[in-house]
């Protein structure tokens, strides 16, 4: 998700949608997705939401970006920031040799006209930056390679 609080955008698959939630008295909210309006009731905690929509209840789990990234990284390479989709490098706030903490933004990319940042999953040192600002990459490309020590 991106955008200012009054004009959020949702990137889902390859599409971007304008989304807005209007809370109503009585607990049934209006959820707007582009021009469509859905009546729903939502309750939950930060990580798990229960949503009543059109007579059914759905459970939507929220994965923290750090956690999701860490998980994705664990699956492939514990210390690599991989591209979640094809796009362009917008900014590289780190340089080779920099020490980063968990949660630090290591690369900002643009995909489908939406910018997003990828963050370090744990404390590490930047060892490789294969792409320069302005270059394109494919989905799954390693944008930033990290290591726990320089010797790695």
């Amino acid at each position, binding site marked *: *998700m*991106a*955008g*200012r*609080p009054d004009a*959020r955008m*949702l*990137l*889902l698959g390859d599409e971007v*949608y304008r*989304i*807005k*939630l209007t809370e109503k008295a009585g*607990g049934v*909210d209006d*959820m707007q*997705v582009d021009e*469509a309006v*859905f009546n*729903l*009731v*939502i*309750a*939950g905690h*930060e990580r798990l*939401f*229960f*949503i*009543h*929509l*059109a*007579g*059914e*209840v*759905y*459970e*939507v*789990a*929220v*994965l*923290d*970006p750090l956690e*999701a*990234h860490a998980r*994705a990284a664990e699956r492939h390479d514990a210390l690599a920031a991989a591209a*979640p989709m094809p796009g362009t490098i*917008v*900014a590289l706030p780190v340089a080779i040799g920099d020490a980063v903490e968990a949660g630090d*933004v290591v690369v*900002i990319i643009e995909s489908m006209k*939406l*910018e*997003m*940042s990828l963050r370090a999953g744990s404390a590490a040192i930047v060892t490789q930056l294969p792409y320069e600002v302005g270059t394109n990459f494919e989905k799954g490309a390693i944008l930033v390679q990290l290591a726990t020590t320089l010797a790695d």
Partner: protein
Amino acid sequence: MSGILPFRSVLIANRGEIAVRILRSVQAMGLRALVLHHPADHAAPATRQADEVIEITGDTPVAAFLDAPQIITRAREAAADAIHPGYGFLSENAAFARAVTDSGMIFIGPSAESMALMGDKVRARAFVAAHGFPVAPSAIEEDDPASFVARACAVGVPLLIKPAAGGGGKGMHIVRNMDQLEDGLAQAQREGIRYFGDGRLYVERYVERPRHIEVQVLADHYGNVVHLSERECTLQRRFQKVVEESPSPALTARERQKICDVAVGIARAACYRNAGTVEFIYGEGAFFFLEMNTRLQVEHPVTEAVTGIDLVAEQLRIAGGEPLGFSQQAVNVRGHAVEVRIYAEDADAGFAPCTGQVLRWLPPSGAGIRVDAGIEQGSEVSASFDPMLAKLVTHAQDRQTALNLAVDALGKTVLLGCRSNIGFLRRLLQLPAVRNGDMHTDLISESMDALRRPAPPAAAVRALVGAAALKSRGVCDAADAVPRLHAAMGAWRN
């Protein structure tokens, strides 16, 4: 109007929706309602509405509600005049009924003798058969254990093996081929010992694709017995009822008259008093006695809806020694009523019970809609108790309208925080076989493919993900935290 009842306060020895239901009639009659409470029950609406809450303890909450000596002691300490057992727990325990009476209180239900007779399924069956009422062809082991297998063979297939001490479908086996008989008997005996501590068996002719039809009766202390027509409870999962309705769409007027007369005859023969339900298996134009439940039933509201009679109020009056205030001729069935049971369960996962905190509970309301609920916002649905949370009952001029009203009301019922079968019930009530009244007890298990929740349409997924993102502080903070044009993005899993 009722006269003066010989009790002023009633202890409700139950919990959940039925405690709320009983409390409503107790208080409406100007009586004090005392309600039991175990600490495991958070935000239980009955305790909030009670005139007095009586705490009980036990190793488990269920053990506390089954602890007859403790309940009777607490009831006496609180100077309760009468005890209403509800359903489940101690409601069909003859020793409890006797102990309540022996300690000087009034038990709101039948005599301990009636309960003991009907509680022993083999005895009840023999009693009913001896009085000339229809039972399925059968063979009972203890009549002559040596010849049991031969007599079971003579009943013919298909047959059903049942534990004599059984209930709830446990230890029951269908035999369709005589070669399977001895293995089935051995297995049922092991299960009978394991579940009920009693390996005695009986077999009876099995009615294929049967329907379950039951008759509500009311009887006073003066020999007056009336029926309040029938309920059909054919739609079941794992031997438990899910949908009940009245009248049954299966019966002709003649069959209805016959089955209701038989139920009254059985109650009369048993010198029964108070409210009771005679259950029958119905199939191929014939019906057979199954058992008699000596208590208020979960599904009593459908009868209340079509007859306009408050069954709990009648129970209280009968227990207070009043004669029935109306005759059989005065009982009229108006329209059609449907009840669905809202369970905390995952229908798509084999009806596995679910737990959680009730974050949002918005029951439906409107003309022809009744909701009996044992939960409220904040209630904790735990594995300690039965997973039935609430009942939705609709009443309309005809069956299709009542079903439509129920489908619509289920769609508006919001229960968030704990999985429930609400969506499943909505799909079930729309099955063609249900709409046509063409039901049998295996319909749900045979229709599971059509009853599973379909994947949400793509447009709904966008709304769901978007709503969760906008409600998630972490996601919004992340989106706002990235300087200016740089936005963060969450990852999603539905």
